[in-house]
């Protein structure tokens, strides 16, 4: 899929969202049943815990054309597997530093703790991230990965 419209209101970024089953994924359900409208930008992938998200998933998402990657996990202290979200936070922090070195804009990668009851927060986070990415425009990462320049 090719995004041709650059940086405008008609273009909807594609955000790959890795949501923990026990919290953020449930929050997105709640946002749905509560009819909280938010930008149709996310493609949600449910994982059993934010600690399951390998940096490889994030890289693959960008390499395959994501304009942003959003990770949603349980609040500190609330992880069902006790420490998965701390591990996620450490990976994420390291990943952010790597992404910056690779020339990937900071706003394309985001981590939020969103509990099952925070449908409203989910709405705000998705809308806010979508706005930020809209300002950046479509990601060129896929093109760079696939086009070797001689």
């Amino acid at each position, binding site marked *: 899929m090719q995004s041709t419209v650059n940086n405008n209101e008609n273009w909807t970024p594609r955000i790959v969202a890795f949501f923990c089953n026990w919290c953020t994924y449930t929050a997105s359900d709640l946002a749905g049943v509560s009819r909280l409208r938010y930008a149709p930008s996310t493609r949600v992938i449910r994982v059993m815990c934010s600690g399951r998200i*390998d*940096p*490889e998933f994030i*890289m*693959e998402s*960008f*390499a395959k054309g994501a304009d942003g990657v959003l990770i949603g996990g349980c609040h*500190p202290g609330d992880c069902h597997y006790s420490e998965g979200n*701390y*591990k*996620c*936070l*450490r*990976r994420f*922090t*390291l*990943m952010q*530093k*790597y992404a910056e*070195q*690779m*020339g*990937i804009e900071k706003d394309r990668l985001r981590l939020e703790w969103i509990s099952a009851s925070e449908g409203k927060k989910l709405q705000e986070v998705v809308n806010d991230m979508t706005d930020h990415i809209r300002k950046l425009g479509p990601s*060129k*990462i896929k093109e*760079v*990965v696939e086009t*070797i*320049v*001689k």
Partner: protein
Amino acid sequence: MADKPKIKLAVYWGAACGGCCVSVLDVHESLFTVVEHADLVFWPIALDVKYKDVEEMPDGNIDITLFNGAVRTSENEHMAKLLRKKSKILIAYGSCAHMGGIPGLANFSNKEEIFKRVYETSESIDNPNKVFPATETEVKEGKLTLPKFYNDVMTLNQVVDVDYYLPGCPPQTERLVEVFMAVVTGATLPPKGSVIGVFDRVQCDDCKRKKSDKKGITKFYRAWEVVDDGETCLNEQGILCMGPATRGGCGVRCVEGNAPCRGCYGPMEGIPDPGAKMMSAIASMLEGKEQDEIDKAIESVVDPAGTFYRFSLPGSILRRKQK
């Protein structure tokens, strides 16, 4: 075995440092065994065989080519394609051909920046007329040509079909001899595309240092900031070691020499990105839970991209720095 026809062997360097060619020489007295079973038909570091001679060979004439070095110029690419055509088995030999290697670190930059630095702003350069290498230059005697310097560094398999990968910077010579003897004795070769001359375990499995389950690292140090005790796992002492994300094969030779593993043997089977693996491993070894503790620990990993992809940037998922 004397009546068996000798194997035709070629060794070539692309964007390489010469170390891989020297590692072939390092077979020492095994060289006699090699020469007993093989004719070296092309090897620029040691033999005066011209490109033209290779061009004149029938296709598939060479039994095995060890191609070391990355692909960074039009000459490297031309030779990769030529040797592919002329060889039955093409082996990406060494980290540079396998994953891009040290020359592949240039994918953090680009041609324009590199030329500017090397031919213009470098402290040892005086180039007031801004003369840059050109692929063609007219002089009164005629036209001079140079290979084209590409913007991106490539791995060998980004340019041609590769049969096997033999990693290492350079590969451990014993592994080369084992692979060579397997071919000579007619052993069944592994499936095409395999990484050969490696073990099925990570470096840590071969490492003799004392390891504990809980690493509990709060900070990493530069090598000169700490004194290694010589026996505890380097990561546990806060000296970043790529062992957990690196495939065995070398005999943990760096750690044996009290230096951390830098990852030249590449990732384990089925892992497409060595850096991703290392980031996961580090996240598990750190103990901080609060953002500020974690920030402090991560801050001490000075150059994650350059450290985790020291030998593998062009072969990694994201391949190069964004423009």
